[in-house]
């Protein structure tokens, strides 16, 4: 089986500043990978660059062996919660239904089967009873679950989640990680930008530790060593060492 995502010597700058420097790695299908690193390490930039939303200065990104452009319909993206207008006049079910848009042709409306799919995805994340609520009326965890349902409705091969666990309740977090693990077991590829190091062990098999440059890419136990972590954080968080050592 070929690689799902391969990144080779990627350089990306954001507003003229170099945010990602010479990053290379490749990920196989059926992986649940965390992207971790300190604030400003270029985690979201890397994600957006793989998605082809930010042009790269140098290097290549291949998705399923080809250009990102050719694989767009196989990618699902869950944005950071802070990037969404929660006052937008849209209901929970209609938000999930947007997940079916990429596969719909121009001028076509979602059909009954699309609505059914959206509803099933809401059920999977435990949000079907809220289907007629406006999205702003939900708690943070519920909002995140609705957006995961939208990604599920895309029936994608590769999932990108940007900080999905920020500001959400513990049961939503458990639901989300459970679903992500199921997707992994079905052979999907999942990339999660994450900044809570304490749970990285339990959630991911592989980690991309980033601080503009790639500090380390590999299995969790290789990456979560005091030396590599402190190299990435450069003493920004001294208590982390103890945390990692004790875990």
């Amino acid at each position, binding site marked *: 089986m070929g690689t799902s995502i391969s990144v080779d010597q990627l350089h990306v700058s954001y507003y003229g500043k170099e945010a990602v420097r010479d990053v290379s790695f490749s990920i196989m299908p059926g992986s649940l990978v965390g992207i971790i690193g300190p604030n400003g390490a270029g985690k979201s930039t890397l994600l957006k660059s793989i998605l*082809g*939303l930010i042009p790269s200065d140098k290097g290549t990104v291949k998705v399923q062996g080809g250009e990102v452009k050719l694989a767009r319909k196989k990618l699902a993206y869950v944005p950071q919660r802070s990037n969404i207008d929660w006052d*937008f006049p849209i209901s929970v079910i209609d938000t999930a239904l947007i997940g079916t848009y990429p596969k719909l042709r121009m*001028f076509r*409306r979602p059909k009954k089967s699309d609505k059914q799919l959206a509803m099933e995805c809401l059920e999977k994340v435990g949000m079907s009873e809220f289907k007629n609520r406006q999205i702003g009326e939900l708690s943070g965890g519920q909002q995140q679950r609705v957006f995961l349902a939208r990604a599920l409705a895309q029936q994608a091969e590769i999932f990108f989640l940007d900080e999905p666990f920020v500001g959400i309740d513990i049961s939503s977090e458990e639901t989300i990680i459970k679903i992500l693990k199921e997707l992994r077991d079905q052979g999907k590829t999942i990339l999660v930008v994450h900044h809570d190091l304490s749970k990285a062990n339990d959630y991911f098999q592989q980690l991309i530790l980033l601080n503009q440059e790639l500090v380390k890419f590999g299995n969790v136990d290789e990456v979560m060593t005091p030396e590599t972590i402190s190299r990435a954080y450069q003493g920004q968080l001294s208590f982390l060492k103890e945390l990692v050592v004790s875990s």
Partner: protein
Amino acid sequence: MNFLEAVMHYEFLQKALLTSIMVGIICGVIGCFIILRGMALMGDAISHAVLPGVALSYFLGINFFFGAVFTGVLTAIGIGYISQNSRIKNDSSIGIMFTAAFALGIVLITLMKSSTDLYHILFGNVLAVRPSDMWMTLIIGVIVLTSVYLFYKELLVTSFDETMAQAYGLPTKLIHYFLMTLLTMVTVASLQTVGIVLVVAMLITPAATAYLLTNRLSFMLFISSGFGSISAVLGLYISYKANLASGATIVLVATGLFIITLIFSPKHGVLRKLINSRKKRVSYS
């Protein structure tokens, strides 16, 4: 003679009424997307930027629709270019470009030495609607409504989550400029009714009123165009009765409806919030 009889009797009133209703509907629809995308200022800018195009069209002797759309879209592109390629922020680049276009328009029109035309373009004169204007409004209305119907899905997703739209391959920039083109056309259609200066009120006020009443975009479009056309009819009626400037009266009616909704809206009204917070306080005491 009462208003209804007058409408039956005078053709100019019928045309005025029909044109105003159509303007209310299309402004209401496009306005929803404008406010949801946080582009109210852009709406104001594009409507002003139409002026030099109108003046040029008079010079060249062509229908002012073409000139207006040309300078409107050109200004939208200019604004986009400056804010993307310099450190000037979007609101500032809007401020620079639209005042420039507007000033150019005023200079061009004074060159023609026709201040009455300028007055009518700026403030509208719905009672002087010619049949050709009415037909143009109708055609623009059909184009705008059909476009929104056909591209509803794309307009919804780019307004709600542009990053996702980009990620799955929608040409978001093209859709932005497409919406700007529709906006320019709506402005042109509204020239006679409310005029350049007040078009932005017809775009934003009914849409904002609808936004306070519903949590669904599809309903919002209908409610907004409903408020737009009710304002147009009621405003026209009052301006006819009291002999007031029609465009300004229509805008004031729309504002009145907005204020009533702001206070009494069952979901997002000020009164509702007041009652809710009082209930909380009572329940804790």
